[in-house]
C-alpha cells in the first residue's frame, strides 16, 4: 500500500475509535497530514511529526516546505545521515488566523492555532505553547497537539512544532518548538539529543534544582575503568583529561557538564550537546545509534511467522528475515543450522529436504549492525536473533507379509510398521504399473486388510506410505 494511502486509512480508522473524545478536531475538509519522508510502515520506522504554528491558510504550503527542510537538516548530520532510511517524517498542517507568534514585551500578540509565545517564564528565547505562565489551559496548546497526534499519527516518535517566526527561540521536551531563525535547525539537533536519546547537556551553566542524575554522556565518575564510555578512551589519554589542542580530538573525561563547572565530566571537549555548530561527540553518536535500534530493532519481521514446524516427512523449507538497512551497507546476517554456521549472509535461506534430519532441527539467524560508531552495547540493541524449530517425524517404514488367498478370490494382507499419514497396498501384473487395491489411514503397529475382488493375473504386491 502506498504510504500516503496508509496514513489516510489509519487516520480514518482511528477517527472512528476516538471521535467522541476528539470532537474539536475530528472533521476536516481534507486530512491535514502529508508525508514528508516515507521509508516504511509506521510501526517499523521512527516517525518525526511536524506541526504548523503561526502559519495562515495561505502559508501552509510554505509550512510543508519548511517541514521538509527541517527534516532534511535533522537527518543530514551524523549519525542520522547513515540511518536516514530508518525515519519517516510527516507534516500536520493546521492554519492559524495570523502569522508568527506572541512577543509580549513588545506588545505583539498573534492569533495562532497553538497560542505559542516567546518570553515564557521571563526568558526571551523560551518559545512555548500552553500550559505556560501566560495561559494555564492545557486544552489551548499541548492538548491540541496531543489530539492531532492521536488522530493522525499516534505512533509518533519525535514531535516538532515549527513556529512561523524568525525570532531566535525554541524549547525542548516531549513536544519540541523551533522557530525559523537561521540557528533553529542546529538547536533542534541539540534538542533531539535530549528527547530522542536522553542525552544530557554537556555545558556548565548552573541549573539549580535539576535532577542530580547522570545521563549517557555525563558522569561524576573519575575512575578510568569505571567511566561508562571507557571503550572510547585511549590508554594514553589522561583521565581526567585537560582541555587543550592535544586533546581536542580525543575522547576522555573533560570537566564541566550537566550544569556544573566542576565535579561533572563530559566525553569530549567539544560536542553538539555543549556547543552548537559542532558534531555530536563519539559517545553521543553511539547513544543516538543505540536509541534508534532500541526503537526498531535489527529484525523487523520473519517468515515463516510460526517458529515451530512439525513435518511428517522432510521437505525443503525457506526462511526469511526483514531488516532495515543503513544508507551505505547491509546489516550483518548470520545463519546457523543445527549449530553449524552457514556461509549464507543474505536475508533468505533455503534448507533442502535432504538436510533436515529426523528429530528437531534448529535454524537461527542473527542480525547485527557492526557499525564502528558503537563500541559498547550491553543491552544488545544492535543485535536481534530469531530461531525456528523444524521437527521431522521418523520416516514411514512398512512391512507387507505374504498375502493369503481366500477362497472367493480376495486376499488378506498383513501390514506392520509406521505410516503417519496412511498407506496404500498396490498390485501389479508386470512390476511396471501399479494399481491401488486398498487404502488405509495412519498406522503405527500392524493391521490386517482384505481387498475387493482382484483383477486377474497379478504377480506382485507392495505398500506405499502416503506423504
Amino acid at each position, binding site marked *: 500500500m502506498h504510504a500516503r494511502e496508509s496514513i489516510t486509512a489509519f487516520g480514518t*480508522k*482511528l477517527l472512528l*475509535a476516538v471521535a467522541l*473524545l476528539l470532537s474539536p478536531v475530528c472533521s476536516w475538509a481534507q486530512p491535514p497530514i502529508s508525508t514528508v519522508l516515507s521509508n516504511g510502515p*509506521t*510501526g517499523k520506522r*521512527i516517525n518525526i511529526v511536524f506541526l504548523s504554528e503561526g502559519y495562515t491558510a495561505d502559508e501552509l504550503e510554505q509550512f510543508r516546505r519548511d517541514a521538509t527542510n527541517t527534516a532534511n537538516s535533522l537527518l543530514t548530520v551524523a549519525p542520522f545521515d547513515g540511518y536516514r532510511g530508518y525515519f519517516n517524517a510527516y507534516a500536520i498542517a493546521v492554519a492559524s488566523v495570523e502569522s508568527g507568534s506572541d512577543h509580549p514585551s513588545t506588545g505583539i500578540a498573534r492569533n495562532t492555532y497553538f497560542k505559542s509565545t516567546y518570553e*515564557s*517564564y521571563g*526568558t*526571551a*528565547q*523560551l518559545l*512555548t505553547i500552553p*500550559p*505556560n*505562565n501566560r495561559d494555564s489551559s*492545557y486544552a489551548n496548546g*499541548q492538548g491540541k497537539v*496531543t489530539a492531532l497526534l*492521536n488522530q493522525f499519527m*499516534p*505512533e509518533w*516518535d519525535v514531535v516538532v512544532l515549527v513556529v512561523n517566526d524568525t525570532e*531566535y*527561540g*525554541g*524549547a*525542548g*521536551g*516531549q513536544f519540541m518548538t523551533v522557530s525559523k531563525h*537561521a*540557528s533553529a535547525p542546529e*538547536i533542534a539537533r*541539540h534538542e533531539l539529543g*535530549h528527547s*530522542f*536519546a*536522553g542525552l544530557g*547537556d554537556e*555545558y556548565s*551553566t548552573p*541549573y539549580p*534544582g*535539576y*535532577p*542530580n*542524575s*547522570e*545521563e549517557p554522556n555525563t558522569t*561524576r565518575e573519575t575512575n578510568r575503568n569505571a567511566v561508562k564510555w571507557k571503550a572510547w578512551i585511549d590508554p594514553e589519554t589522561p583521565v581526567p583529561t585537560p582541555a587543550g589542542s592535544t586533546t581536542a580530538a580525543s575522547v576522555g573525561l573533560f570537566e564541566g557538564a550537566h*550544569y556544573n563547572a566542576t565535579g561533572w565530566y563530559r566525553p569530549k571537549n567539544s560536542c553538539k550537546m*555543549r*556547543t*552548537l555548530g*559542532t558534531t555530536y561527540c563519539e559517545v553521543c553518536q553511539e547513544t543516538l545509534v543505540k*536509541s534508534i535500534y*532500541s*526503537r*526498531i530493532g535489527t529484525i523487523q519481521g520473519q517468515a515463516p511467522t510460526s517458529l515451530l514446524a512439525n513435518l511428517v516427512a522432510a521437505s525443503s523449507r525457506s526462511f526469511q528475515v526483514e531488516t532495515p538497512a543503513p544508507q551505505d551497507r547491509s546489516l550483518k546476517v548470520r545463519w546457523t543450522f543445527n549449530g553449524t554456521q552457514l556461509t549464507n549472509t543474505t536475508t533468505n535461506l533455503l534448507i533442502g529436504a535432504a538436510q533436515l534430519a529426523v528429530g528437531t532441527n534448529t535454524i537461527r539467524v542473527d542480525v547485527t549492525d557492526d557499525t564502528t560508531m558503537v563500541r559498547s552495547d550491553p543491552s544488545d540493541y544492535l543485535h536481534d536473533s530469531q530461531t525456528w524449530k523444524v521437527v521431522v517425524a521418523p520416516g514411514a517404514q512398512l512391512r507387507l507379509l505374504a498375502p493369503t488367498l481366500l477362497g472367493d478370490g480376495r486376499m488378506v494382507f498383513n501390514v506392520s510398521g509406521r505410516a503417519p499419514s496412511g498407506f496404500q497396498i498396490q498390485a501389479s501384473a508386470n512390476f511396471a504399473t501399479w494399481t491401488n487395491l486398498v487404502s488405509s489411514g495412519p498406522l503405527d503397529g500392524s493391521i490386517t486388510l482384505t481387498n475387493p475382488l482382484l483383477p486377474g493375473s497379478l504377480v506382485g504386491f507392495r505398500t506405499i506410505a502416503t506423504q
Partner: protein
Amino acid sequence: MAMSLALLASAVSTALGASGDTNRFVALQLKVTATEVTLMQALQFPGKAKPEPKRQGLDYVILTAEGTVVSRGSIENPRFERACTEEQPGSGILTQSTSTLEEAITVLRLPVDPTADSIEFFKSPDSGASPTQAPQFLGKVSLKTP
C-alpha cells in the same frame, strides 16, 4: 485518585490489560506535580509503542494484580521546562533557559499487556543517593477497566 479512575473509565473502552493483542498500545496522559502523578486520560491505539530512552525524572513500575513487577521504566519529568539557547545568536556557546513548573502534563505510551494491573510512579533518586533510601512515591494509576 478516585477522579483519575473515573476519567479512565469514561475515556477507555478497553484499557491496558483488557486485551491480549500485543499490537496495541495505551497512551496515558499524566499530570505531574512535585508530589503527585495523576491520570488525566487513557486511550488505546493499534500499533506499536516503541521504547523511549531512559530518562531520569520519573520512574515507574508496572505491576500485576498480585503485585509482581511486570516492567520498569523512567521518563523525563515534564516539570523541568528547558530550552538550550546560544549566549549570543550564532556564537554556538550554549546556555539554558529554564523554568520549573508547578505542574505539567506528559504522555506515556505502553504496550498493551494483559497481565498489567496498575502503574506506580516515583521520583527518580539522585545518582548519588543511598540504595537503601526509599524513592518518593508519587501515585498509582489503575490499568484495568472497573
